[in-house]
């Protein structure tokens, strides 16, 4: 049934992806540009790894609104982690540490979320209900994220179809993880509580490239509002992937859109290969019902082993468990992703659930690498009563962790007979992904009893609507019609200057190409000299173009004014030169050049031109000077 064999990434075609039934959707997280955090008055966007104090907490699962414990919750409880929060008093108050109830939602953030929701064409909600979305990994000290839907059911055009926007929510950002070793996880809390929006698309993308392209469109769309943060970590994607017969799997926290194609390819391959693994198990007669395993303590047999990790474990008085997976021979070497095998599915679970974070945390008898001696495998096999077609897996740790580890090995192996377990997975740099946690269901949502619902008046939405830029694809179409340079079209459409551009072109009747090139290209080029400077404000550009339009400054004057805007906050325009003054400058320069010994006579006019322009740059058009001195060379302007 799953006959198709995955090809290397570069060789996969659209048809191949259609064959496996590739489907993918996005959950795009984008920080909003606000002064303060979402539910307290701490400053947003101040990052630092320094901290003043630490707080220790644990997380316990609770009952969900619909009355049952959530799957993830139970798993996290099994792991019993100690969570350490590093706090810095400038960026964190008692709210983030869950020692003070929330304050009213930040209005500016809510407005931005509503505006972006409308830009996506969503049906906006009339009353915003804050929910608590449970996270037991400790990434939020309350154990839940405050989050609320502001709009549902939007769309964006893509190719010749529509990508559905299922919902858009506003929520608080989580902590940044510092480390996660053994039973202790450390977080830094500066980012905690910052407002962000989550945009959920339908599972409408059919190839890995499409996923990245749609992510790019969404990113540019939200950026065009000028209401979101940019830079590293300001936008993060969760990617959902499934194949025919597979499960919707979520890859969490993909920081860069360029890494999406390889990640989704690998995930599709993983699911496909796990389905093939299930078929192989079935062929061997191993099903959920007939699955058999056995666990035994094999510490004694291995007490003289020379395999370093286990030798160390024995020295530290740890326990070594062996799990026998009946009939599994060779299957831990079954490929799942690029250079990745089924054994990693097991190792990942052991790492996360049993907190055995030092790798390797398991070894197995299918391995071709050097582990324990063949005689030791033989002795273990004898003790546990293994047959030739069985696989043995070893796991070690303190009593409790070694036992949890063994249980997880059994659980994950058995799941292979069922299919693909619902889980969230983390993205790795090499394009593969690893187990993070069991996929939480809608069961983890609770209403937030600390905050009342917030009514959204129609008038508020109407007002916000007026501030919205056109949707980027509409602008791009118009820009193409205006024939502005093609390399400027996309960046301009995604910039915060779209409304300004429209005004300058439609109302001020300025040349579209000039305006576009100034806003995007000039700024980009100038910015390389002032890397730390902020983007020029819309109001500043309005002033500059006003000065240009009324003839106070020239085109070159625009550049000078922009330089000024980058370096100091106050705009100063050089006054346009008047004719007598220009005549004076020309005469002085002609005098000066006569004193100079110019080697090549024919270059004299060019040098003269340069001397004059040096004095009057930005105050008069170069061509005027050229005319006056009879210079016909290539002027810059």
């Amino acid at each position, binding site marked *: 049934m799953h006959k198709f064999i995955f090809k290397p990434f570069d060789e996969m075609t659209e048809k191949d992806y259609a064959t496996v039934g590739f489907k993918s959707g996005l959950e795009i997280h984008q920080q909003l540009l606000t002064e303060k955090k979402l539910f307290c008055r701490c400053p947003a966007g101040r990052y630092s790894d320094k901290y003043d104090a630490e707080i220790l907490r644990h997380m316990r699962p609770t009952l969900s609104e619909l009355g049952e414990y959530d799957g993830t919750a139970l798993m996290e409880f099994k792991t019993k982690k100690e969570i350490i929060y590093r706090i810095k008093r400038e960026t964190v108050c008692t709210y983030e540490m869950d020692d*003070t109830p929330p304050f009213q939602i930040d209005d500016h953030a809510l407005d931005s979320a509503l505006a972006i929701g409308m830009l996506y064409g969503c049906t906006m909600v009339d*009353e915003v209900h804050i929910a608590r979305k449970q996270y*037991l990994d400790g990434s939020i000290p309350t154990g839940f994220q405050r989050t609320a839907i502001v709009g*549902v059911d939007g769309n964006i055009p893509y190719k010749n179809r529509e990508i559905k926007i299922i919902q858009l929510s506003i929520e608080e950002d989580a902590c940044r993880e510092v480390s996660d070793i053994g039973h202790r996880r450390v977080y830094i809390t500066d980012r905690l509580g910052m407002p962000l929006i989550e945009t959920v698309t339908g599972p409408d993308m059919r190839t890995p490239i499409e996923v990245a392209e749609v992510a790019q469109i969404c990113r540019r769309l939200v950026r065009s509002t000028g209401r979101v943060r940019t830079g590293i970590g300001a936008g993060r994607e969760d990617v959902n992937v499934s194949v025919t017969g597979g499960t919707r799997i979520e890859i969490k926290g993909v920081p860069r859109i360029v890494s999406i194609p390889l990640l989704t390819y690998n995930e599709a391959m993983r699911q496909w290969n796990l389905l093939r693994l299930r078929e192989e198990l079935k062929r061997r007669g191993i099903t959920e019902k007939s699955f058999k395993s056995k666990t035994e303590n094999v510490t004694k047999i291995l007490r003289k082993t020379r395999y370093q990790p286990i030798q160390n474990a024995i020295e530290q008085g740890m326990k070594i468990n062996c799990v026998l997976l009946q009939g599994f021979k060779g299957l831990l070497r079954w490929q799942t992703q690029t250079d990745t095998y089924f054994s990693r599915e097991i190792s990942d679970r052991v790492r996360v659930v049993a907190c055995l974070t030092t790798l390797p945390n398991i070894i197995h008898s299918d391995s071709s690498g050097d582990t324990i001696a063949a005689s030791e495998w033989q002795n273990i096999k004898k003790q546990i009563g293994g047959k030739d077609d069985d696989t043995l897996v070893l796991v070690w740790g303190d009593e409790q962790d070694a036992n949890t580890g063994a249980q997880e090995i059994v659980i994950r192996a058995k799941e292979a007979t069922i299919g693909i377990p619902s889980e969230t997975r983390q993205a790795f740099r090499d394009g593969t992904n690893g187990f993070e946690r069991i996929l939480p*269901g809608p069961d983890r949502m609770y209403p937030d009893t600390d905050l009342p619902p917030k009514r959204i008046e129609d008038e508020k939405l109407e007002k916000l609507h007026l501030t919205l830029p056109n949707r980027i694809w509409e602008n791009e179409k118009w820009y193409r019609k205006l024939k502005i340079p093609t390399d400027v079209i996309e960046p301009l459409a995604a910039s915060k200057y779209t409304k300004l551009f429209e005004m300058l072109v439609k109302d001020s009747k300025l040349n579209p190409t000039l305006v576009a090139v100034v806003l995007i290209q000039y700024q980009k080029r100038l910015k390389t000299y002032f890397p730390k400077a902020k983007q020029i404000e819309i109001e500043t550009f309005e002033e500059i173009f006003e000065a240009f339009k009324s003839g106070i400054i020239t085109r070159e004057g625009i550049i000078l004014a922009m330089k000024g805007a980058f370096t100091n906050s106050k705009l100063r325009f050089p006054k346009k030169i008047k004719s007598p003054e220009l005549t004076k400058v020309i005469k002085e320069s002609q005098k000066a050049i006569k004193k100079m010994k110019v080697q090549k006579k024919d270059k004299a006019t060019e040098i003269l031109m340069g001397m004059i322009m040096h004095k009057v740059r930005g105050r008069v058009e170069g061509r005027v000077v050229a005319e006056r001195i009879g210079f016909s060379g290539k002027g810059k302007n």
Partner: protein
Amino acid sequence: MASDDYKGYRGEALSTLKNFDALVWSDVEIKTSRGSYTGIILPRSETADPLHVVIKLRSGYNIGIAVSKIQNIKITGRKEAHYKIPEKAFPYDPKKPNVKLLGTGGTIASRLDYRTGAVIPAFSPGELYGSVPELADICNLETEKLYGVFSENMGPEQWRGTAEAIGREIEKGVQGIVIGHGTDTMHHTAAILSFMVQNSPVPIVMVGSQRSSDRPSSDAALNLQHSVKTAAESDIAEVMVCMFGPTSDTYGLLHRGTRVRKMHSSYRSTFRTIGDIPIAMVSTEKITPIRTDYKKRRNDKNVIINTAFEEKVSIVYYYPNMKPDIIDSLIDNDYKGIVIAGTGLGHVNKPLYPALKRAKEKGIAVYMTVQTLWGYVQMYVYDTGRDMMELGVIPGENMLPEVGYMKLGWALGQTNDLEKVRDIMMTPIAGEITEREPSNGYLIFQGGIPEVEEFISKYRK
């Protein structure tokens, strides 16, 4: 039609739902002038407006839809939520001590109520075992729900009932008693129980939570473990409050019932012993006494329960420019006792003197405490203090104002003879007055100071 069919809805929202026969818990597709939504109709909080319908979307989120925009509601099914705390029989082990948990309210274990968004306590041993299974490692637990009131609604009836229940349990031979209580007035109840229950042979431990147990970060489970451990294992036979020491999940403190006070509106580590040090620290591992002068556990059942209480007692929190009519109105309303929380060493302004004189003449017991909370009343230092004593105001030493209120109610409940009342008031029974304030009895660290910051950076507060 059951009254819960449209739970919480009224006005326009109710009539819209009725129009489409869309009961609460219906799975629906709602068509509005703006767009369509699919989800389950939820009950609405009764305090919310009558203009919106709440639905739970498939994603688990709730949203509100303006009824004025609703064009159609199509009902496709029904899904009603059933709350259930996983309930398992609490295991019994004859080798383990028996602990009784008395419930008065509060949220040690709880679930949510859709209608009001309120947290409903869950309480049976099975429910508690379901949510905090660790308890079974400590003791055999029995529970009894005495009341289900919020902490601010606790009053003489509940105090008496609780004291009597404690007496019954001691008579039955339990090894320790835990009392679940809302945190707001926990120190009031701790004080009155310290007076109503005398000579207890076993620990009496009051406990609650600052973060309700419907959230993963709740302090409830740990507080419960700490308090049950204290009740089962400690040799401290006093009325105590057991709540978080620091805000971190590390240890709890056992505060003497007459010296403890809630000091922050929301922090976990809100309870502090005032003018003294706590009795002990408690973690899931061990109980570490930090003083030795506590009453020890005994094997007898010789507890004295004295539930006398006079309700006509008041606390007056003095402020500059207070007018005598405040005192006068208490006199005119036949109050029998007044506890003043005075400024500084225990002062009020002169214009109050005539009123205080009237109180004296009418035989009202008036006691002075300090609103600084820390320190003693010292009425000899200034003339004003001496004047007031002439007017019959009795200095209450270092009794906390709330404790003074509880004790005066208890004393007046026993006798109207002001001399006898004075004897009862001024004879310390449970540490409400101490002879001396140790130098570490007053420690409020001031943030920002280098050595304090250094301390905070080293220890998890």
